[in-house]
């Protein structure tokens, strides 16, 4: 990884431009102010974690980035261009793949079909190319060293962890430059969690911009380049992993540390 410095105010300085950025994002659902002010900048070739307590606004932020919600205030920038995404297909077009917290799988369809949703392979103009759909799915799963009984297995028959892996594989299959994951290891055992970590590392190696939400700080510290802490709808701070500690991150999550201590952060 290239050498980076941080400015004295704790905002990491970066030679390249962010692939994806949020500026002063605000979002309310009726009376509920889900997001007050969120700033975020994620860079290619980095894994950027978002951490925070339940209800901090992590998923809401991710849904704005994936076109499912629209921000009330602020800007979403992709490659420094402001974009306004009205639905999830526009996020795909902007090069964003997403693994949602609820996985967004259709239980009555099989693994191959779920992996193709949103970009179903065609034969000719109108025909569904089921053979290719199954081949593609099997290939992606094999590349990721994931073995599911058969790509024809219905999602509804899989366990929670198996579904999670399929959802991750689907996002990887899309092979888009930006990939967002909302608690991708929530339902996974130790070995499977490590495997997902390997997948994230591989995505970073390929130069993708990875944004990942997680409550598992061990996982976060094992794979993060950058960590953004959210609390009560605000992005409190963004820290380089190399320059921070778990205690500091925990302090910021819970609010015992108010903001970044500029002195220490500057000492990169």
């Amino acid at each position: 990884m290239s050498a980076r410095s941080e400015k004295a105010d704790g905002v990491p300085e970066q030679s390249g431009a962010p692939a994806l950025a949020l500026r002063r994002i605000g979002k309310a659902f009726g009376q509920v102010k889900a997001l007050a002010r969120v700033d975020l900048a994620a860079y290619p070739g980095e894994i950027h974690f978002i951490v925070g307590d339940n209800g901090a606004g992590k998923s809401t932020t991710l849904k704005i980035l994936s076109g499912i919600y629209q921000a009330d205030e602020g800007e979403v920038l992709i490659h420094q261009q402001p974009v306004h995404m009205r639905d999830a297909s526009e996020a795909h077009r902007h090069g964003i793949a997403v693994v949602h917290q609820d996985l967004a799988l259709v239980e009555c369809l099989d693994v191959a079909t779920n992996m193709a949703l949103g970009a179903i392979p065609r034969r000719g103009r109108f025909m569904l190319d089921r053979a290719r759909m199954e081949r593609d799915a099997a290939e992606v799963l094999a590349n990721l060293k994931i073995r599911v009984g058969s790509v024809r297995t219905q999602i509804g028959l899989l366990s929670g962890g198996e579904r999670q892996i399929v959802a991750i594989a689907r996002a990887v299959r899309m092979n888009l430059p930006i990939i967002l994951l909302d608690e991708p290891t929530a339902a996974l055992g130790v070995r499977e969690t490590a495997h997902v970590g390997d997948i994230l590392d591989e995505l970073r190696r390929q130069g993708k911009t990875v944004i990942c939400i997680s409550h598992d700080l061990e996982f976060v510290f094992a794979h993060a380049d950058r960590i953004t802490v959210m609390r009560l709808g605000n992005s409190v701070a963004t820290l380089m992993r190399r320059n921070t500690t778990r205690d500091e991150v925990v302090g910021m999550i819970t609010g015992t540390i108010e903001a970044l201590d500029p002195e220490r952060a500057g000492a990169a």
Partner: protein
Amino acid sequence: MSIKTENGASRQAPRRLNAEAFLRPETTLIAVILAIGIATAFRNPNFLNVGNLTDIARAAVIYFVMACGASLLMIGGGLDFSVGSVFTLGGITAAWLMAHAGLSWPFAIAVGLLVGTLAGYANSQVIARLHVPPIIATLGTFFIFTGLCVQITGGQDIVPLPKDFQRLGQGSVLGVPFVVIYAVVIGFIAWFVLEHTPFGVEVRAVGGNRKAAVANGLKVKRIETVLYMLGGFTASLAGIIYAARVGSGQVSAGGSGVTLSVVTAVLIGGISLLGGLGSITGVAVGAILLSTIDNALIVAAVPPQYNTIVVGVILIAAVAIDHVRRERLYRVRR
């Protein structure tokens, strides 16, 4: 990493094939049809006459054509209670244009289908824009369309209809009624769309998990609009076929009875009210079962109330079996 299936080998084992065959609605339905057929044939051997069997097919056609659109819609998570009135509206529109406006039959049919499709569009917009649940929205439009039909006709049947038009509903080739051929063609198209096009896959996705479909970037609203339009299209098509068969545009044809029969045929055929699951072949067998019961009870001179009792029992059984299927497929927990 390897993902082991929880119940291991049983998922791929032959045991599963048996369970699947049993759970396929067609298997059970065909058994029921045969049982009814044999019982009826014992009471009255005329049941097996070619003429009588053709009658059964002819009656099934009307249900089935409407059920094609209704099935796709229900698999996509929608519901249309207005089909009985759109059936009438389509038949009457075409009949009125031929009898009173002197339009040639191809034009009259085209306009009748257009009106039916627009009725479906109206349904979709009431649901999407006014946020009225489908069951209530289409119940409301059912009454509105029914009223329109009476308004157009003044409550009178529309006659006479051109001979050419009537032949479309009454003719046959090699003993096969035209109407049966229409049903086979429509059924084939519906089956093809559902099983072999990306649209069909998306319909199942929307019906199976609408939120997931949205999150995956499917144009859910557009898909739903198209489905309601298809439902209106096949309902009006059935109405036009019926008008051709009986040789008049009847205000009393259709109505709530037809709506209930179509919804029943679809549910008996194994389409889940919860969306996502079901097949056109199942619905075809469901439509044949309904018309077989109608016919058998007449031929075997069973009192008519038995007809409705039998249909009710089969409907409940079919939906109960649907729950068992879901439990197997999705680990439904209660």
